[in-house]
C-alpha cells in the first residue's frame, strides 16, 4: 500500500470529490440511496445527489454538527449539534427543528424504520435519550446515570440501547415501565453497537478495549489489545464479524463458533503502523471499508483477506465512511475537509 498512484486509482476513475473546508463529522446516504449528506464541523451540510455533479451546501446548526444519520423516511436526514438542537434535514438540506435541548449538546442521533408504518428517530443530549415519531411527537425520554455516549436501535425497532459510564442500558420503547435492562461493566463506555440478530450489545471503552454482553444468556465478552480508542464499530450484514477501528489494522472479531470469547481477532490491511480511524461494513456482503489516520481508504474482503485500495494517503485522517443502502457507493470524509462519493457498481 505504499504506491500512492495506484492507491488513488479507484478514487480518480470512479469518485466525485470536493474540498468542503471543514471537519467532516459524518457521512450518510438517505434510505432511498439517492443522495449522500456530509455533516460538517462548521454547522453546514453538503449534499451530493446521484447523477448531479453539483454539491448542495446549506447551513443547519450554529456550531458544529456532532452527528448525522439517515432519516427514518426514504429521503432526508437527522442531525444533532453543539448548539443543542435536533433537526430533521430535508432532501434539499433545509433544517426543521425536532426538539431543542438548551445548553446541552445533541451528541448522538439514530433512526429506525420497518420500511412501512414505523418510523422512529432518536437523539441523546446529556444524560437523556429521546425517541420521536415521524410527526416529531416525543414518544419517550429515557434518563441515564451519566452522559449518553452512543445510541443504537435494535434490528426490529423494539428496543433502543445507550452506552454510558459503567455499562449500557437497553430500553423497550413501547414498555410502560421505565426501567431499562442494565448491562454493567465498570469504566467509561464511549460507543455502542448491536448485532443484527439483536442478541449482542458491544461497547467501546476509554481503556482501549471493547466490552460485550450476550442478552440471551448474560455472557460477558471482553475484547482487548487495542493501542488506542475504538471510534467505530460495525457488524457485518449477517452478524458474523464485528469490525473495529483503534489498531493499525482492521480488527475483526468472530461472532460465530463460540466467539469472540477465547478467539483471536482477524486483522486486515495492517502492518504499516498507521492507525485505523474508521470502519463500516458493507450492507450486503462480508466486506468492510476502512479508513486510516494518513487518509488511506481500503475495502477488505473478509473471507479472502484481499484488499482494494480506494483512496491513497494525504487528505487528512479519515473521520467517516458510509455505504449506500445497496452497497454500490462509498462515501468518504476526512478531518481536513475532503469528501468523496465513489461509485463501485459494475460498469
Amino acid at each position: 500500500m505504499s504506491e500512492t498512484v495506484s492507491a488513488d486509482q479507484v478514487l480518480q476513475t470512479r469518485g466525485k470529490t470536493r474540498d468542503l473546508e471543514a471537519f467532516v463529522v459524518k457521512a450518510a446516504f438517505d434510505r432511498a440511496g439517492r443522495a449522500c449528506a456530509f455533516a460538517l464541523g462548521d454547522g453546514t451540510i453538503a449534499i451530493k445527489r446521484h447523477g448531479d455533479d453539483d454539491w448542495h451546501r446549506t447551513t443547519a446548526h450554529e456550531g458544529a454538527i456532532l452527528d448525522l444519520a439517515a432519516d427514518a423516511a426514504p429521503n432526508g436526514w437527522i442531525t444533532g449539534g453543539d448548539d443543542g438542537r435536533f433537526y430533521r434535514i430535508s432532501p434539499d438540506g433545509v433544517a426543521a427543528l425536532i426538539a431543542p435541548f438548551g445548553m446541552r449538546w445533541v451528541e448522538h442521533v439514530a433512526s429506525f424504520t420497518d420500511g412501512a408504518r414505523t418510523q422512529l428517530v432518536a437523539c441523546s443530549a446529556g444524560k437523556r435519550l429521546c425517541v420521536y415519531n415521524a410527526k416529531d411527537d416525543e414518544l419517550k425520554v429515557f434518563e441515564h446515570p451519566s452522559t449518553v455516549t452512543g445510541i443504537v436501535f435494535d434490528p426490529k425497532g423494539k428496543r433502543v440501547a445507550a452506552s454510558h459510564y459503567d455499562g449500557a442500558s437497553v430500553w423497550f420503547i413501547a414498555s410502560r415501565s421505565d426501567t431499562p435492562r442494565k448491562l454493567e461493566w465498570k469504566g467509561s463506555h464511549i460507543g455502542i453497537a448491536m448485532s443484527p440478530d439483536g442478541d449482542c450489545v458491544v461497547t467501546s471503552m476509554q481503556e482501549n478495549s471493547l466490552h460485550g454482553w450476550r442478552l440471551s444468556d448474560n455472557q460477558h465478552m471482553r475484547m482487548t489489545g487495542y493501542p488506542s480508542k475504538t471510534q467505530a464499530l460495525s457488524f457485518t450484514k449477517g452478524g458474523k464479524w464485528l469490525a473495529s477501528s483503534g489498531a493499525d489494522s482492521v480488527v475483526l472479531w468472530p461472532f460465530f463458533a463460540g466467539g469472540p470469547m477465547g478467539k483471536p481477532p482477524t486483522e486486515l490491511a495492517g502492518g504499516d503502523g498507521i492507525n485505523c480511524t474508521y470502519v463500516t461494513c458493507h450492507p450486503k456482503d462480508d466486506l468492510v471499508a476502512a479508513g486510516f489516520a494518513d487518509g488511506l481508504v481500503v475495502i477488505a474482503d473478509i473471507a479472502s483477506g484481499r484488499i482494494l485500495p480506494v483512496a491513497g494517503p494525504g487528505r487528512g485522517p479519515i473521520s467517516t465512511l458510509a455505504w449506500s443502502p445497496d452497497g454500490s457507493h462509498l462515501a468518504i470524509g476526512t478531518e481536513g475537509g475532503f469528501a468523496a462519493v465513489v461509485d463501485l457498481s459494475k460498469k
Partner: protein
Amino acid sequence: MAEAAAPPSQIPVTVLTGYLGAGKTTLLNRILSENHGRKYAVVINEFGELGVDNDLVVDTDEEVFEMNNGCICCTVRGDLIRIVGGLMKRRDKFDGIIIETTGLANPAPVAQTFFVDDTVKEKTRLDAIVTVVDAKHLPQRLIDSSEAEEQIAFADVIVLNKVDLVTPEELASVEEQIRKINKYAKIHHATKGNVSITELLDQGAFDLNRVLVHAPDFLTSDEHEHNDEIRSMSFEAEQPIDAERFNAWMGALLAEKGGDMLRTKGILSYEGDDRRFAFQAVHMMADGDFIGPWKEGEKRVSRIVFIGRNLNRPQLRRGFESCQVA
C-alpha cells in the same frame, strides 16, 4: 491531490478552581468581559451569570470515572474528553479553553485527564491550574475541608481574592499558610477578581521553566515531616541527569507513593542532550517532553518540585541526586 491539513497547534487549557464563595465566577466574568480580542471556550458546570459575547460556553456535569489501568488513584473527567473531542470539530478554532470546576472538586481528575486521553493530549495542553482563594475565609476552609488544601497544592497560579476585607497582618498570615502548602505557585492579590488576564491565561506553567526559576528557594531543614499536611519542596542537581536512572527512580517513587504525591514537576538536563526536558506528574500519571534548547551560556541545572503529603525530604534529595551522571 488535496494537501493534508497541517497539524493544528495545541490549544492551551486553563483550569480554574476555588472553594465555594472564593470568587471564581466573578473572576471568570472579569476574564471574559475584558477586551482581550481572543476567543475562548469556557466549560462550566452550572450556567451562572456569565457575561459572554465572543466566547463559547459549554455546560457540563463533572463526570469522574476511575480508570481500570492499575493506578489506584487515577480518576478522570470523561465529560472533558468528550467536550475537547467535540470542540476540535469546529472550524472556528479557539485561542484557549477555560475549565471551571465546582467548589468542592478535587483538582486531580481534571489534571489527570490531560495525561490519559490520546486526543486530549494531542490537541490540547494544560497551561495552568489557577486557584482562587478567599483571603478572609481561607484559614477556616483549610481547617474544615481537604479540598481547599488540595486546590492550593495543585495550583500554578493563586488568586488571593478579597484582600480588601483583611488587615495587612491577616493577609501576611494567610499568605504564609498558602506558602506552607505550595511554595512554588505565583500569588496575585486581588479585590473582586481584578487580576489581568495576562497573569492568568497562557502562562505556560507546564512549561515550568519560569515557575521553577522564579520559585522562592527558602532555606529549609532536612527534617522529615510525619503528618498529613501538604508540603512542597524542590531540589537541584548540577550534574547532567541519566535518563534511565531518573525514569527508574521516578517510576518506582510514583508507583509506591503516587497517592501522596499531588504534583511533581521538573526541568531536567539530560546527559548528551542540548534541550531541556520538562517532566510533570499528577499522582501516578507522569509525562515528559523535550522543550526548547538551553540558552547559550545558561547554567544547566536540573530542578524538581514535589507537592504532596508525607514527603521525605532527605530520601527525595538523595534519590534525585543519585540520578546524576556519576
